[in-house]
């Protein structure tokens, strides 16, 4: 059960039993967006729902453990942004490459990495996904083609360019989804990368998670052009804006973007309009925004509640069943946290490993110990 996220929504187009979600939704829920002709299996919808809820409860647990000083340093939670994590991984293939910034827990969980290893990493334990050497900001899983977890704003974008270049070079049919935030997109490195990606038609989807605030600076205080999907225009990169609070819409449109990149037409820029419920990091009281604004997003546009309403309306589940599901997931997350906490800290010898692939005998480690 712990690895339900690894199921990767296989059922989406497989099942005999189709539900036309678009028909089941009210006009308000659709926000003017139609899902006409887009079918989801019951299993896939539950997968998406459970994955989002799991990420939500996982992040809440991480926040708690941070409060108890069991998680140290920086800890950036993604509550509210779950539909982007889950919709993206529904749309992408397992072979596709992905990398993001330091707000990475939700993405690596959605990618299917063992949540106990992710929690152990947050706790600085030996069984952490990177052996306790990275922490919250540096989650990597090479098996899942997840290349971080990068702590410098925008740094992952040229790196993603390199992954896309590699697929062009090897002609391996992979797409790189390179994720950044509305803060990251203002870095110069991003435009250097846009230029080369478009120049060489590399198979990359640049995904901007626009959660409205770069740390404490609102989008309109940091960006001359606040329609971020237009930021690729001068590089001839087509851009689309997706409601990042609607997992089905996000999945569908992201598929189109990934297909565009995979077909050899070059990169695409996707802006996901979303919102983070928590502060930038754990030390952020979020005084730069109003309570009313947060409430408006939380109660009016929450991606989990939205999918629940859609599924209830379509007769796929009930409020009671979702409540029970939530209890189960909270229990599961608590067990994960307990198991991760029970792990030992990394062995002292790990201090000196993974620095070089080809260490030179006698020269490493540079301990400086000569007496």
């Amino acid at each position: 059960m712990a690895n339900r996220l690894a199921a990767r929504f296989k059922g989406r187009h497989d099942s005999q039993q189709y539900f036309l979600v678009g028909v089941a939704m009210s006009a308000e829920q659709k926000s003017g967006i139609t899902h006409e002709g887009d079918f989801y299996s019951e299993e896939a919808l539950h997968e998406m729902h459970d994955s989002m809820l799991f990420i939500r409860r996982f992040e809440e647990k991480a926040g708690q453990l941070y409060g108890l000083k069991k998680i140290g340093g920086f800890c950036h939670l993604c509550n509210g942004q779950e539909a982007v994590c889950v919709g993206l991984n529904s749309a992408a293939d397992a072979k596709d490459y992905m990398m993001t910034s330091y707000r990475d827990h939700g993405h690596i969980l959605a990618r299917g990495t063992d949540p106990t290893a992710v929690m152990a990493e947050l706790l600085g334990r030996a069984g952490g996904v990177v052996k306790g050497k990275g922490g919250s900001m540096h989650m990597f899983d090479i098996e899942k083609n997840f290349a971080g977890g990068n702590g410098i704003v925008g740094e992952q974008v040229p790196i993603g360019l390199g992954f896309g270049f590699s697929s062009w070079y090897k002609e391996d049919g992979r797409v790189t989804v390179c994720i950044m935030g509305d803060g990251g997109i203002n870095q110069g490195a991003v435009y250097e990368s846009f230029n080369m990606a478009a120049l060489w038609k590399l198979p990359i989807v640049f995904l901007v998670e626009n959660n409205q605030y770069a740390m404490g600076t609102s989008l309109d205080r940091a960006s001359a052009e606040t329609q971020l999907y237009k930021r690729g225009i001068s590089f001839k990169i087509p851009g689309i804006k997706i409601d990042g609070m609607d997992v089905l819409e996000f999945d569908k449109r992201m598929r189109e973007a990934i297909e565009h990149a995979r077909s050899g037409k070059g990169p695409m820029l996707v802006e996901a309009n979303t919102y983070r419920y928590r502060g930038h990091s754990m030390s952020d009281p979020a005084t730069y925004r109003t309570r009313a604004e947060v409430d408006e997003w939380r109660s009016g546009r929450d991606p989990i509640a939205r999918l629940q309403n859609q599924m209830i309306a379509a007769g796929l589940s009930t409020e009671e069943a979702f409540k029970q599901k939530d209890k189960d997931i909270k229990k599961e997350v608590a067990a994960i946290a307990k198991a991760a906490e029970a792990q030992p800290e990394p062995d002292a010898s790990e201090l000196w490993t993974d620095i070089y692939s080809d260490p030179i005998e006698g020269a490493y480690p540079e301990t400086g110990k000569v007496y």
Partner: protein
Amino acid sequence: MNKITYREALNQAMAEEMTRDDRVFLMGEEVAEYNGAYKVSQGLLDKFGPKRVIDTPITELGFAGLGVGASMTGLRPVIEFMTWNFAILALDQIVNAAAKMKYMSGGQYSCPMVFRGAGGSAARVGAQHSQSLENWIANVPGLKVVMPSNPADAKGLLKASIRDNDTVIFIENEINYGDVGPVPEGEYIIPLGKADIKRVGSDVTIVAHSRMTGFALEAAKILAQQGIEAEVVDPRTIRPLDEETIVASVVKTNCAVVVEEGWRFAGIGAEISARIMERAFDDLDSPVIRVTGKDVPMPYAANLELMALPSVADIVEAARVACGRA
């Protein structure tokens, strides 16, 4: 042995490695159609085609990061900076990404790649195009730093660097590009992390790298005429530093001069002299002397530029002081 230039040696190293391993590609400004700003990549586009020899826009941070990402997928990028002065724009990718990726990912990802290009002072190009930055980069765990001083070393070390599974910072010297020297033919690899004794002597150890190795050898000739036999040690690899070879030489000569073109403060010379102190304190008859570039931005005027750089005469004088024959 064939006598070829330093730039031809580098060119051969890349051509041979690209022939051997199709994961190796060369990318940088003007490397392809222009045949290299310093002609180091002459003919490689014709030989390997536009997929493996790639001109970039002027965008150092971007293509440095491209190399990092490509190396994480198993390719073997050789990323050329026209000069290391411009690599300052790319330091985030070198220091925060390439150097740390293996550690941060708990050993999952590594960055087997070479960043190469001309470093050190050039001639009459002013402060922004004439400086030695190896001490910045050599400070970072996760990187290896290689600086060849002659054509043979240039070839053997570049081949080893391309084959190495870590990120290698390969700093060439613009003024040395035209130097001619003997280079062994065929497969010729010099292992990283090994210093080379360029001249054997018993009276004073002179440690010098890159262009300064040539200066040290010139100084040694003059010193020999004065009855002083200098031993010239070229570390060749700055990180990891071959401490053993340096210390063994000092144990023999009992005094040392460390020469570098870069600035004195926290320079390579400071590191080497500290290690000599740590490892060979009892063998020293006199304090280690550093000969370095002056602590000023590089001036343009010919006379001032000359004054800003270490000279052969400076090295001769330092060596005489070090061995008590000033």
